[in-house]
């Protein structure tokens, strides 16, 4: 059953890819959406009938497909693991995935690459589900690279645009830097645990406990102690940074917006980019064994959240704003993981999937309605043209800003509170991180309000030239507009409505105890999540470190009043942010933003100058031109000039080169013999 959850979209992808061009749009839409629907139905069925009925703490469903590689003491299977963590993921992946597929049939209507698009998109679903359901680090890596590949194909979908191809390449390569950490992490994990599996496996006739079980038995490495667990955790985190666009590997995600908008919604907001969070939560047993790793995760997360939010304020492309917002929200999730509140992180992954997919699809609807216009400075007043888009996006806006009773509010508040009350990190640090996170929440509300105000309210600025947009105001009120915005078709706004509903109610699975909820999602997830060891050895903390039931008891001791006060603070901050944004941008929508922010802190330029250009330069100008061609050509000419002669008469006769090669070989031989005889 589990394998069919993953394979249904693969079959869809093959059908679309091979037959789609002949059989047309109707067929492709049907197959693509149908296969994801099958996958979703199976996922819900497996989740509610197979997983949930199991007693708490034993909710694990495994399915062996085939033994992929078994050699010596190494074993990795094509096998699937359904537990609360992967269960949560497959529900929202298939759910949101289906909605976005349906939306995309409208959005991509008439595109000549329609079949190709859905083939890639279905393939992506297959890879993403493999990633989440894989029962070992290696199979997870297949999905991991697979989603990267699909993301690459889909970012570069618009082949006529040069920047799309470049962005695709950039995304892939930056991700590979993350994979470097991941690959070595897997090696180290294998040498440490002789297992790369998340479940116990029989390897060579011996039962080897899962790497998570083994990791949980290792002693905790304190801050500053750089042991093997820290090494594994940090290496895996490098991989997570690449996939989930954390500083310093976030640069690819904003560029990835060159792809079609449904892709941005599905891959670069709701699902793929949260794979890093999934990995961190999946390996929580490893991360919690190293306080250094947790600290780094938390700091990177908080810093990314803040950093991206500041950039988001100054962007003018509607999708770029949302992209930086995604980076920022991913930072929140890592912050949660870093302070030991993995469940809060996953909770935010889920709510974020709802409201960010909603916002992206809304943005797509706006772009569609505005005839491919993406610059928010040239929008304005769209609410009367696009009522459904406007209403649904408003829900998304309020949810992400943290307005009470919407989903984003619950998850974000949970992260803030967990950060403040965390015992896994030094107290001073948790307070600083909390403050950063709070400031980010304020900024989030501001930039989202700016986005909404510039898009839906105020005057219509459809004709303002792009480059002068920030100082020239609209003069020709009554003049005939070149652009006639229109509402998108039903097939596009109905998924928006569904997502809006989810963005409202999605948060109620995680209402904290302080507000009379039962925090169902935390209870549900906690058996598969390791608890972080406390920094200070208090009585409560020590108990929490050893046993999970003790941790729950400690939770009960939460100072309910304090928690309520903190919730109050977040609410105030959210409204303050909205208020600030509203007053600033309704008064002066096109106010000039600091150029440092508008230029994204020049990160791309810095990377180009510091890393990319030197490597390419070395390759082109030194290694190839000089060592390969010039050492022969140039040195000859140089020396020839030295002797007052030019030696170009025999240019076509390349035997000269062969002689030079022989000379270099001879040097190599002499060095080798020297080394052998005189060592």
């Amino acid at each position, binding site marked *: 059953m589990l394998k069919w959850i993953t394979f249904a979209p693969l079959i869809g992808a093959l059908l679309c890819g091979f037959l789609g061009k002949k059989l047309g749009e109707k067929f492709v839409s049907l197959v693509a959406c149908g296969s994801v629907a099958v996958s979703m139905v199976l996922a819900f069925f497996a989740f509610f009938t197979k997983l949930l009925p199991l007693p708490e703490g034993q909710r694990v469903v495994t399915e062996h497909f085939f033994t992929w590689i078994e050699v010596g003491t190494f074993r990795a299977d094509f096998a699937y693991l359904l537990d609360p963590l992967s269960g949560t993921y497959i529900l929202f992946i298939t759910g949101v995935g289906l909605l976005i597929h349906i939306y995309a049939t409208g959005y991509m209507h008439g595109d000549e690459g329609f079949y190709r698009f859905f083939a890639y998109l279905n393939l992506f679903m297959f890879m993403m589900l493999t990633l989440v359901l894989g029962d070992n680090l290696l199979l997870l890596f297949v999905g991991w690279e697979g989603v990267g590949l699909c993301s690459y194909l889909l970012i570069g979908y618009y082949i006529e645009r040069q920047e799309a191809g470049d962005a695709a390449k950039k995304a892939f390569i930056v991700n590979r830097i993350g994979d470097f950490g991941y690959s070595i992490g897997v090696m180290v994990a294998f040498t440490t645990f002789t297992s790369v599996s998340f479940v116990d496996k029989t390897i060579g006739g011996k039962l080897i406990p899962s790497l998570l079980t083994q990791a949980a038995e290792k002693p905790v490495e304190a801050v500053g102690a750089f042991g093997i667990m820290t090494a594994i955790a940090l290496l895996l985190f490098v991989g997570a940074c690449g996939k989930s666009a954390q500083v310093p590997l976030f640069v690819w995600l904003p560029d990835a917006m060159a792809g079609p908008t449904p892709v941005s919604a599905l891959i670069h907001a709701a699902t793929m980019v949260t794979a890093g969070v999934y990995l961190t939560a999946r390996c929580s047993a490893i991360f919690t064994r190293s306080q250094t790793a947790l600290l780094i995760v938390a700091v990177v997360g908080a810093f990314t959240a803040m950093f991206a939010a500041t950039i988001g304020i100054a962007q003018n492309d509607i999708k770029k704003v949302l992209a930086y917002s995604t980076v920022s929200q991913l930072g929140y999730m890592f912050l949660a993981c870093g302070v030991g509140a993995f469940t809060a992180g996953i909770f935010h992954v889920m709510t974020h999937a709802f409201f960010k997919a909603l916002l992206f699809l809304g943005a797509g609807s706006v772009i569609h309605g505005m005839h491919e216009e993406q610059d928010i400075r040239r929008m304005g007043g769209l609410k009367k043209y696009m009522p459904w888009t406007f209403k649904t996006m408003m829900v998304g806006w309020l949810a992400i800003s943290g307005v009470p009773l919407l989903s984003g509010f619950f998850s974000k508040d949970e992260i803030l509170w967990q950060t403040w009350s965390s015992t896994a990190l030094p107290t001073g640090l948790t307070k600083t991180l909390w403050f950063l996170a709070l400031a980010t929440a304020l900024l989030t509300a501001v930039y989202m309000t700016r986005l909404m105000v510039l898009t839906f309210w105020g005057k219509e600025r459809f004709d303002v030239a792009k480059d002068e947009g920030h100082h020239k105001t609209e003069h020709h009120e009554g003049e005939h507009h070149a652009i006639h915005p229109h509402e998108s078709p039903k097939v596009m706004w109905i998924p928006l409505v569904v997502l809006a509903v989810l963005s409202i109610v999605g948060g109620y699975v995680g209402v904290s105890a302080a507000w009379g909820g039962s925090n169902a999602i935390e209870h549900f997830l906690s058996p598969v999540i390791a608890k972080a060891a406390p920094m200070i050895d208090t009585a409560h903390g020590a108990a929490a470190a050893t046993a999970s039931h003790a941790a729950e008891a400690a939770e009960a001791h939460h100072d309910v009043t304090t928690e309520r006060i903190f919730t109050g603070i977040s609410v105030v901050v959210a409204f303050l942010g909205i208020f600030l944004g509203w007053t600033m941008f309704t008064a002066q929508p096109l106010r000039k933003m600091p150029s440092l922010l508008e230029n994204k802190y020049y990160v791309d330029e810095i990377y180009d100058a510091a890393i990319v250009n030197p490597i390419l330069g070395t390759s082109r100008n030194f290694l190839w031109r000089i060592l390969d061609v010039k050492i022969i050509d140039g040195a000859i000419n140089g020396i020839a000039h030295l002797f007052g002669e030019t030696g170009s008469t025999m240019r076509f006769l390349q035997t000269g080169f062969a002689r030079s090669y022989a000379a270099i*070989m001879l040097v190599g031989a002499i060095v080798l013999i020297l080394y052998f005889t005189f060592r």
Partner: protein
Amino acid sequence: MQFSNLNLDYFSILPEIITALAGVILMLIDAFSKKAGRKLSPMFSLFALVATLASIIALWPRASYTASFAGMIVNDHLRLYFALVIVACGIIATLLASQFLDDEALPPGEFYALMMFATTGMLMMASAGDLVMVFLGLETSSIATYVMAGYRRTDLRANESSLKYFLLGSFSAAFLLYGMALTYGATGTTNIEGIRQILIAGKVIYPQMLLVGVAMMLVGFGFKIATAPFHLWTPDVYEGAPTLVTAILATGPKVAVFAAFLRVFAEGLGTPTAPAVGAQIYDNWINALAVMAAIGMTFGNIVALAQRNMKRMLAYSSIAHGGYTLIGFLTTEYAPVGFYMLTYALMSLGAFAIVQMLAREGDAKTEISDYAGIGFEVPNLSFPLAIFMLSMAGIPPMAGFMGKFYVFKSAWVSSPNLRWLVIVAIINSIISVYYYLYPIVVMFFRPPVSDFTKPRLSPMSQLALAITIIGTLYFGLFPNGALKVLQQKTPGAQQVAVQK
């Protein structure tokens, strides 16, 4: 000299006999029926190669360390496995050859004969139990490939490539031969197992001489597997030779050389615990090869970044792959090398085959910019090429990933001294993604060129392409079968007594 000791086991050299005989028959076919030869020769070659394959499989149950022909031929699992890969490369190359020869209007007879003789040489390298046999095998396959590189006689580039390959190849062969001579002088035997016994017993006559001899053999092998600093010939030769010949050059001989290299170094000189010079030699070659591997793959990958010609890029990439394989080599196990060579051979043959199909007559179109926008014009070529590129870059679930993973994992586990090399290799494989993606970007994300016409594909080439694609995917998804085969170790490591 007791003749009874010779162990003249003709069954054990059946693969070599079949290919050599087939080579002779192919020349006769060409001599007596020029017209029919064009159709008959490839068919007969294929038949002979399949028969060879069958004979190798038939030899499998007889795998043992007992050497036949006075220690000249060793029929163990290493030999059989590598022979299998070599013949598989031969089959794929033969399938591709008929279209190449037709398109270029070249005489078919000698080409197939040469390919058969080259295969004979490669098989001899894999089965060699003696330095003499290693050298003979190497020369047989090399001379055949020198000629094949220059087979398109009217083409100046091919002539240049052939001549350069010949000159430098002879230069390196001189080193190899001198090294073997010195090794013989220092140990009194050319038998590889014999050398090993002498090292273990600490009975080396002239230790200094042995050190120089081994260093020189390393130069010779280093040239053939194209690792730094002996790789310089590769790009020029690969670019100049007809693409099909490049495909052959880059795969079969490399596989065979690795087999012989394993036999001589990992088995003969793999003596870490031997007294005195034995251990020193082991340390020396391990260290030297580690440095050569690191330089080779770094150089190959970084220079490949700047290439705009497909064949040249693949040449540098093959230098890098040689470096990765050497990491597996340093574990002194044959399994990682064998598996990597299998995956490498499949994807290289596939990639070069597509380059050849797209190149037109006289290899006119081998610049990557010539591939602009062909992605959806010829999906039957562009998608396979994309798969091969991704596989070479090490993206799962393609075979290239499995090969890399297995090599890196084996090295990582086998010795902490190799871990730095694994890290260097992983960084390298990240750099390599950049240039492997470049053709994909050009094919799929660039506007098409106007003068592109779909190439003709013969059924045989299509079959070859299918084999390489299916193999590339199969060994990525189901590597277990091949790995199981590679885990087989020939029991009882006792070798026949050293002659004389």
